[in-house]
């Protein structure tokens, strides 16, 4: 068996004396989609931030391509695309300027793809509009456009479909499925019913999962 891309071993996290998860172990292989499920407040965002390295408030081990995470932090960061609750879009810059900067600080991206990506997320004609003049959904689309030109093998997506309209959701789902089909991996949370069926594994957090 090949070494898994990402491996979590015996994770434990509590916040304000409420245990969110304990003895949580899982692996993620290339080409797999892991959907973290759970009701509101079950710790999905917390888990994703831990995996991304944004939060250190946990116990347990993480490893990346078989090596302890702390040894390969930089390689991991270069290989990951993170999409969180905050879109990371600067309100006074235009969509294009925002994405160009992202390309500059994240190596595994194709800067030539920015323009096309904006068109793909339906922002053609809004290239020159500062992002504070975009609607809630459009703002998140700017950030989601990264999915079109990033070559990072691992995507970590926290509620990527929030505020996106139905057609947008369908397109993004297709994109995620295509990424997995090409051998990429995805960890995501969403309260939508995922239409993707292939290579999807569920990870349930929290006592009662609405089904």
């Amino acid at each position, binding site marked *: 068996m090949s070494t898994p891309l990402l491996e979590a071993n015996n994770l434990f996290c509590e916040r304000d004396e409420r245990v969110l998860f304990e003895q949580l172990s899982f692996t993620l292989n290339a080409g797999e989609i892991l959907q973290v499920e759970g009701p509101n407040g079950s710790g999905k965002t917390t888990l994703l931030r831990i995996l*991304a*390295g*944004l*939060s*250190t*408030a946990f116990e347990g081990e993480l490893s990346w391509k078989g090596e302890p995470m702390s040894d390969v932090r*930089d*390689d991991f*960061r*270069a*290989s*990951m695309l*993170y999409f*969180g*609750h*905050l*879109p*990371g*879009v*600067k*309100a*006074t*810059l235009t969509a294009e*300027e925002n994405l160009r*900067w*992202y390309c*500059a*600080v*994240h*190596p*595994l991206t194709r800067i030539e793809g920015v323009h096309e990506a904006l068109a793909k997320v339906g922002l053609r004609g809004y290239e020159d509009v*500062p992002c504070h003049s975009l609607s809630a959904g459009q703002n998140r689309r700017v*950030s989601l456009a990264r999915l079109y030109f990033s070559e990072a*093998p691992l995507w970590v997506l926290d509620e990527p479909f929030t505020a996106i309209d139905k057609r947008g959701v369908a397109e993004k789902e297709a994109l995620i499925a295509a990424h997995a089909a090409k051998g990429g991996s995805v960890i995501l949370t969403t309260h939508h019913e995922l239409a993707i069926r292939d290579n999807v594994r569920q990870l349930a957090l929290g006592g009662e999962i609405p089904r």
Partner: protein
Amino acid sequence: MSEPSVDISLTRVFWITLRRDLLLAYRRRNDLISPLMFFLMVATLFPLGVSPEPEFLSQVAAGVVWVAALLATLLSMDSLFRSDFDDGSLEQMLLSPQPLALLVLAKVVAHWTVSGLPLTILAPLLGVMLYLPGEGMSALIFSLLLGTPTLSLIGAIGAALTVGLRKGGVLITLLVLPLYIPVLIFGTGAVQAASTGLPIGGYLAILGAILALGVVLTPLAVAAGLRISVSN
């Protein structure tokens, strides 16, 4: 997998980040004049609040200009990382494989270019309004030129540590002001020495040394502070 990161050279990352921050400042260019106006106004408040007499003012001019520059820098410090924090850009910065200290340094340089530098350029005007003796003028400019970058660097540490807190604006003052005091003392010292005809080389050398130390060390402290604030 990590070859591409070598590809994008560090200098390029520095310049692009610097350019982005300058562009952001330019987009809100009306905000740029605000620290300057603040600077001017503090210098106005002083004669209004204390005494408008020329002999008196000319004694205190150096100190007042320096204190005003210090407060103006301090005021503008809070916004250094706040908007990046609020909109999630900061998370993306932390998740970049590029050295965070470098990105931070670029941001601080941009901040200084749009705050400390104009302050320094405006300082002679304040000097005139407060009757600073002519001999002190060049010392004022040089001391500010060497001192304000240090103020920005030190302020960035405070900004990084408080960015995760709601209402950091005032707490930052608390963290940063004590660290500003040496800069203030050597800065005003230089101007006062010049006004009385003494050499100022020693003062400037110390300010320069503090700055050099700051450029090397503070970005690391800021980077650490940011990681702490975000992981909160």
